[in-house]
């Protein structure tokens, strides 16, 4: 396929879609399916066939649209009109929706999400731009929306150093949580000496409460592949690996299908878009180890070893897979790349904050009215995300904290809700951006119990290589358990804090270094809760079952 063919294909696809009077996009992701999306699609199919509308109405099963608590979702796209989004659709309302859009029936407004709903209007979708709007299993859908245009532009208009410059200039930073400037990393790998180089997409999304990578891989797999191919061209790699978390079989299937489709069209494989650039992508399936999100452990796992980290430096950019320079970026980071290249770095850099450009996807969940995925410009405040997009706390309860960054992050209290979200802002509050988990907690959550929960996670996921993490998490967990049981002594808090500091400073990898974060951040903002457990044998949130200690029990 040549660049001109790509354009022709996009035009033909758009023309073919313009024929339909209405396109009904049924969200077919897990939450909507669990809510009955299957029955909705079935009812629509029957109705469309029964009324002989097959030539006028197209039914599409799409990936995730985002407002997951309101599913099943159906989006109606009509030429010359703004998309109409319907929520909590049943087979009956689906027919009413079809009536309105295809047969001039009365509006089905009762089920329509208001176009002014902040959940829709306040988002800026770059990585998620196609999610919920295309059939992830059709490469043509992606191409019709400008897909692979970024790769074509890079291959034929830019040289590798210019691509790296564009990425650097866009201000894009690692979306996996570290926030390292992506363009710098690319340039490091490009300049690293080595005949063979690798590109790796990290889709080992292990943070509980985060699922943006799954959504992106399931709903718009080609975007990730295109981002990887552009990276391959920029750094001089001919082989890419996409490491998919074992818990995400659908993502792996879709990616596999997408890779085959792209290879068939000459968008991956040898002589991509008839250039001299060859790029092949292989999938590697994770086998259930959180630590493999750490880049050196991830590489060990790709090479078929126990997923244990090794000390850095050397960084993967110097010495990665099989000793070769290796570029590792998160799936979401790659998801931003195609648009940066095709629309230009200035366009991307215009959004966000001076230090953090662009957008970030968050997985809103926990005690919040609207759960789901949102992509917002960097710099939006926590309050806006919780109350405007999230719709506040259900049942009129009081907001207590938002947990960001998963087991490596922390809890942020109500008094800091007006903090703008970016890497540094969250870090100053003792949390991290992480991969974008955003768990809202109300007054029924006990902060000590939450800290204990995360510590249990870390001790279970510790690889066991270094002593501070392997043995330290066990001891910290024991102290936290004692506190939640009301059996802690007065010196336990001090002991806990000392352990936290030691494990943070001396662990080998990021997992261990960040394991104390949930404890340190809750100690910082909710110390009174720890003290109530220890001194008053009382759980302010009413979660912990405390049994008073007998005499000198430890």
């Amino acid at each position, binding site marked *: 396929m040549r660049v001109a063919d790509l354009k022709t294909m996009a035009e033909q696809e758009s023309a073919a879609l313009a024929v339909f009077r209405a396109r009904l996009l049924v969200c077919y992701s897990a939450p909507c399916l669990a809510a009955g999306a299957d029955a909705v699609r079935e009812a629509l199919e029957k109705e469309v066939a029964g009324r002989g509308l097959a030539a006028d109405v197209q039914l599409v099963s799409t990936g995730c649209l985002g407002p*997951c608590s309101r599913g099943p979702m159906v989006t109606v796209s009509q030429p010359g009109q703004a998309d109409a989004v319907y929520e909590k659709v049943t087979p009956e309302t689906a027919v009413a929706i079809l009536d309105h859009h295809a047969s001039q029936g009365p509006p089905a407004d009762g089920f329509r999400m208001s176009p002014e709903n902040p959940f829709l209007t306040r988002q800026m979708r770059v990585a998620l731009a196609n999610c919920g709007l295309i059939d992830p299993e059709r490469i043509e859908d992606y191409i019709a929306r400008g897909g692979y245009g970024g790769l074509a532009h890079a291959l034929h208009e830019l040289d590798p150093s210019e691509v790296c410059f564009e990425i650097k200039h866009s201000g894009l930073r690692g979306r996996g949580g570290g926030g390292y400037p992506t363009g710098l990393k690319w340039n490091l790998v490009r300049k690293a000496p080595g005949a063979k180089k690798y590109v790796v997409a990290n889709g080992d999304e292990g943070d509980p409460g985060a699922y943006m990578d799954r959504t992106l891989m399931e709903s718009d797999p080609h975007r990730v592949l295109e981002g990887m191919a552009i990276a391959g061209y920029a750094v001089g790699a001919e082989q890419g690996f996409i490491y998919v978390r074992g818990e995400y079989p659908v993502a792996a299937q879709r990616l596999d299908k997408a890779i085959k489709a792209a290879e068939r069209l000459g968008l991956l494989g040898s002589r991509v878009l008839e250039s001299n650039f060859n790029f092949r992508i292989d999938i590697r399936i994770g086998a259930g180890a959180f630590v493999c999100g750490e880049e050196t452990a991830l590489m060990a796992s790709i090479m078929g070893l126990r997923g244990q980290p090794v000390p850095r430096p050397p960084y993967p950019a110097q010495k990665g897979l099989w000793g070769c320079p290796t570029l590792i970026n998160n799936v979401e980071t790659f998801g931003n790349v195609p648009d940066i290249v095709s629309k230009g770095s200035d366009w991307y850099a215009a959004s966000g904050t001076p230090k953090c450009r662009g957008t970030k996807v968050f997985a809103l969940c926990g005690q919040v009215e609207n759960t789901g995925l949102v992509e917002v410009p960097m710099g939006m405040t926590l309050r806006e995300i919780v109350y405007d997009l999230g719709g506040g706390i259900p049942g009129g309860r009081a907001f207590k904290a938002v947990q960001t960054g998963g087991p490596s992050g922390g809890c942020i209290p109500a008094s800091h809700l007006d903090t703008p979200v970016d890497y540094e802002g969250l870090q100053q509050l003792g949390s991290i951006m992480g991969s974008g988990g955003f768990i809202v907690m109300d007054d029924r959550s006990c902060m000590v119990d939450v800290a204990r929960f995360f510590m249990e996670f870390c001790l279970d996921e510790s690889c066991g290589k270094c002593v501070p993490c392997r043995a330290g998490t066990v001891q910290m967990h024991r102290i936290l358990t004692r506190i939640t049981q009301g059996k802690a002594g007065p010196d336990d808090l001090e002991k806990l804090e000392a352990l936290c500091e030691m494990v943070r400073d001396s662990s080998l990898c990021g997992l261990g270094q960040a394991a104390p974060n949930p404890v340190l951040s809750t100690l910082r903002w909710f110390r009174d809760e720890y003290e109530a457990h220890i001194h008053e044998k009382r759980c302010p949130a009413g979660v912990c079952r405390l049994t008073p200690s007998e005499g000198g029990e430890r």
Partner: protein
Amino acid sequence: MSIETPTPESHPGGDPRYKLVDRALKRFQYRQDALIEVLHLSQETFGYLGEALLTYVARALKLPPSHVYGVATFYHFFTLKPKGEHNCIVCMGTACYVKRAGEVVEALEGEFGVKAGHTTEDGKLSVSIARCLGNCSLAPLLVVDGEVLGHETPESTLAKVRAAVGKEQAE
């Protein structure tokens, strides 16, 4: 040593399932770095990674047995023991936890007399815990025999798992 050690050339007892493993080995050109992929496929085929199977894979990939065993036990996905006829995975990610998935686990453990991560003595049911299945808007979430169920309570869970293992009929 009493355990039969198969070689790539001869399958023990002519078990046809080894052909599927062979196919995976060939697809990855017997590359040692494909160990995890091969283990995935082997487990899919056999349901678990038994000793003979691990030995077979180690020989085929020319890897030390202890290395293969080390990898197979490092990752939580691999199981060295047969799983139950039915399985129930309870998600214990953060979102599920704050929505009290812990109570669901307790209910299951109490009802079926099995600790999470284990299989009942009659081999009927395996209960396991997942570290976030990435469907947080459905919290608390479980997967019973491959079916995703959302917004669960201890009562609804017990009802569904009882139905799955057909316990009511037995009583």
